[in-house]
C-alpha cells in the first residue's frame, strides 16, 4: 500500500465492568480505513460503534488489540493522534453561551492554529456550512441542524487528516440530514479527509459510505462496499410493466433466453426476472424486448437492501426507525440535536453500553 491506512484497528477488545455484570462492548474488531474515503460503521444502539470511535480517538483504552490513526499508535502517541484527528461526538460539543464564530475561533486556537489563520479558517467554515448569517448569535438560539453543522465544522478547524463522526445526523430533520451528508461526502472527495462515521441509519450508510462495517453485539458481522454487500446476497430483480395486454408470455420467453437472466416470471401485465446486476443487465433486457416486439411501460430494478444484508448476517431485521423530529428553530433549547436516540435494537431488550 502506498499510503498507510487512515485508520487501522486490530483485534480491539473492550469490556466494561466485571464478572456477571460485564458488558462486552467489543469482542475483537479488526478493520482498516483507506485514505480519502468515507468508512461507515453500522449497527444498532449498543453494538459497539461509539466504543470503537472512543478508542480510536484516544478517549478510551482497549483491553486488548491495538489501533492507529494516520499511522500513529493511539496508545503510544496519543498527542500526535489528537493533532491528526477531528472528533465529533454524538452529543453537542459547542458552548451554547458563545457565538458560532467564538466557538470556531476558540477551537482553532486550542488546536494551535495561529490567530490569523484561525480567523480565515473560521470564516471559510462558516461559509461552507452555510452558517454565516447566524455566526454572531449565541449558539443556544440556533436550530438543531445548524448546531450539528457547527459541531462538524469545529471538528475541522485544524485540517485534520481523519475525521470521526459519531452518529452525526441523529435527531436531525430529513433536510438537515441531507445537507450534512452532502458536506461529508464532499470532504472525502475533494479534501482528501478520511471520514469514519457511525450510524444506525441504513439509508445513511448506503448513501455515504464507500466501505461499510456492520457490527452487532461487539462483533463484525459483515464488511465491504454497500454494493458488494448487497450483491453478495445474490441477484437484483428487474420488473417490467407491459402496457399492451397479451404480450407477457412473449416477453417472458425473450428474457428467459438472455444469458445471465434466471427465473423469468410473467403475469398478465408484467414480467420479472432475476439478474446479477440490474443496472448492467437493463440495456440487454430492453433490447431483447424490442427485438421481440414487446413494448415496455415502466421498468424497475430492485436491489437487496442493507436491511436484507443485516438480516442475512445478524439473523434478524435491523428495523430502521428514523425519528424525523422537527428540530427547526427552537430558541432556548440547547440540545435539540442530541436528545433523540432512536430505539433501533432489533433483538429487543438490548442496552446501550457506550461509556
Amino acid at each position: 500500500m502506498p499510503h498507510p491506512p487512515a485508520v487501522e484497528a486490530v483485534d480491539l477488545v473492550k469490556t466494561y465492568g466485571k464478572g456477571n455484570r460485564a458488558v462486552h462492548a467489543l469482542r475483537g474488531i479488526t478493520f482498516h480505513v483507506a485514505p480519502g474515503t468515507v468508512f461507515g460503521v453500522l449497527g444498532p444502539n449498543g453494538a459497539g460503534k461509539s466504543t470503537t470511535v472512543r478508542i480510536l480517538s484516544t478517549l478510551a483504552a482497549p483491553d486488548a488489540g491495538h489501533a492507529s490513526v494516520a499511522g500513529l499508535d493511539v496508545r503510544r502517541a496519543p498527542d500526535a493522534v489528537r493533532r491528526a484527528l477531528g472528533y465529533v461526538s454524538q452529543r453537542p460539543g459547542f458552548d451554547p453561551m458563545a457565538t458560532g464564530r467564538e466557538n470556531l475561533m476558540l477551537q482553532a486556537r486550542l488546536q494551535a492554529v495561529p490567530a490569523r489563520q484561525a480567523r480565515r479558517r473560521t470564516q471559510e467554515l462558516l461559509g461552507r456550512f452555510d452558517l454565516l448569517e447566524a455566526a454572531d448569535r449565541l449558539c443556544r438560539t440556533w436550530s438543531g441542524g445548524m448546531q450539528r453543522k457547527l459541531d462538524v465544522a469545529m471538528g475541522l478547524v485544524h485540517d485534520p487528516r481523519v475525521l470521526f463522526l459519531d452518529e452525526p445526523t441523529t435527531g436531525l430533520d430529513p433536510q438537515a440530514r441531507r445537507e450534512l451528508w452532502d458536506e461529508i461526502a464532499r470532504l472525502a472527495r475533494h479534501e482528501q479527509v478520511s471520514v469514519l462515521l457511525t450510524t444506525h441509519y441504513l439509508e445513511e450508510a448506503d448513501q455515504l459510505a464507500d466501505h461499510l462495517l456492520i457490527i452487532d453485539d461487539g462483533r463484525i458481522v459483515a464488511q465491504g462496499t454497500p454494493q458488494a454487500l448487497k450483491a453478495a446476497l445474490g441477484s437484483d430483480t428487474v420488473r417490467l410493466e407491459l402496457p399492451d395486454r397479451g404480450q407477457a408470455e412473449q416477453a417472458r420467453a425473450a428474457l428467459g433466453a438472455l444469458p445471465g437472466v434466471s427465473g423469468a416470471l410473467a403475469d398478465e401485465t408484467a414480467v420479472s426476472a432475476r439478474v446479477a446486476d440490474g443496472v448492467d443487465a437493463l440495456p440487454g433486457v430492453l433490447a431483447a424486448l424490442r427485438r421481440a416486439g414487446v413494448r415496455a411501460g415502466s421498468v424497475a430494478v430492485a436491489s437487496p437492501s442493507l436491511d436484507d444484508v443485516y438480516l442475512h448476517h445478524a439473523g434478524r431485521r435491523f428495523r430502521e426507525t428514523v425519528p424525523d423530529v422537527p428540530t427547526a428553530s427552537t430558541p432556548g433549547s440547547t440540545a435539540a440535536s442530541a436528545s433523540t436516540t432512536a430505539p433501533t435494537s432489533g433483538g429487543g431488550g438490548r442496552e446501550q453500553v457506550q461509556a
Partner: protein
Amino acid sequence: MSAAVVQTRLLTVRSLRRLSRQPALLMFTLVQPLVWLLLFGALFQRISALPGFAAGRYLDYLTPGIVVMTAMSTAGWSGTSIVEDLDRGVMDRTLTSSVRSTALTAASLIHQGVVTVVQSLILLGIGLVAGARYPAGWPGVLALLACTVLLGWAFAALSDAIALAVGDQAALIAVSQFLTLPLTFLSTIMIAPGLLPGWVATAARYNPVDWAARAARESLTSRTDWTFVLERGALLAALAAACAALTVTAYRARRRGR
C-alpha cells in the same frame, strides 16, 4: 510551555465571557452569605461583649469570616461546569484536542480567582455599609483577598477533581453538603477562638477554612501580625497546590481512558 499559557488564556477568556453573559449566576451565590452577614451580624451583635472577642464590634469580626466562607462554598461548585461539559460532548471534544491538562486546570482556577475577588469585594462593601470597619486599609484587604483566593483555589480544584473522577453532579452536592457546613462551624468564623469548646478548637487547628478565616481577620485589624498571616497563607498555598495537582492528575486519568 508557551502552548499551555496560550491555552490557559483562551480557556479563561471563554469562561469569563460565559460568566459575563450570565452575571445573575454570580449574584445568586451572594444571597446566602448576605443573609449570614446581615442576619447574624444583627442577631449576635452583642456577642462581642463576651470575653475573647478582641474586635469591638461583632460585624467587624464576622465580615472577613463570611467572605472566606463564601469563597469556599462558591468554589465547591466549580466542578459543576465540568459535569456539564461531560454531559454534553464538550469534554470529549476538549480531551481529543491538543489542550494540556495543566491549561484546563489553570483556567478553571483563574476563573475562580476572579469570581472570588469580585464576590469578596462586594461582601466587604456591604459589610462596610452595614457598619463594619477595616482599620488595616488596602494592604489588609489585599492580604485578605490573597488568603481567600488561595482557599477558593483549594476547594475549586478539589471540586474539579471530584467532578472529573465521578462525573456526577450528585457527588458535588454531597461535597458541599458534607464539607462546607461542618468546616464553617468547626472554625472561628462565627465565634472567637477562646470561646470554642476544646474539641472544636482542636479540629479548627487542622481546618483550612479556619486558617483562612483567622488570616483574613488578622489582615484587617489595626495592628496586623504579618508573620501569622504569611504562615497561614503558606499553608493555604500548599493546600491549593496539592489540590491543583490532584485536578491535573484527574484530567490525565480521563485522558488515559477507561
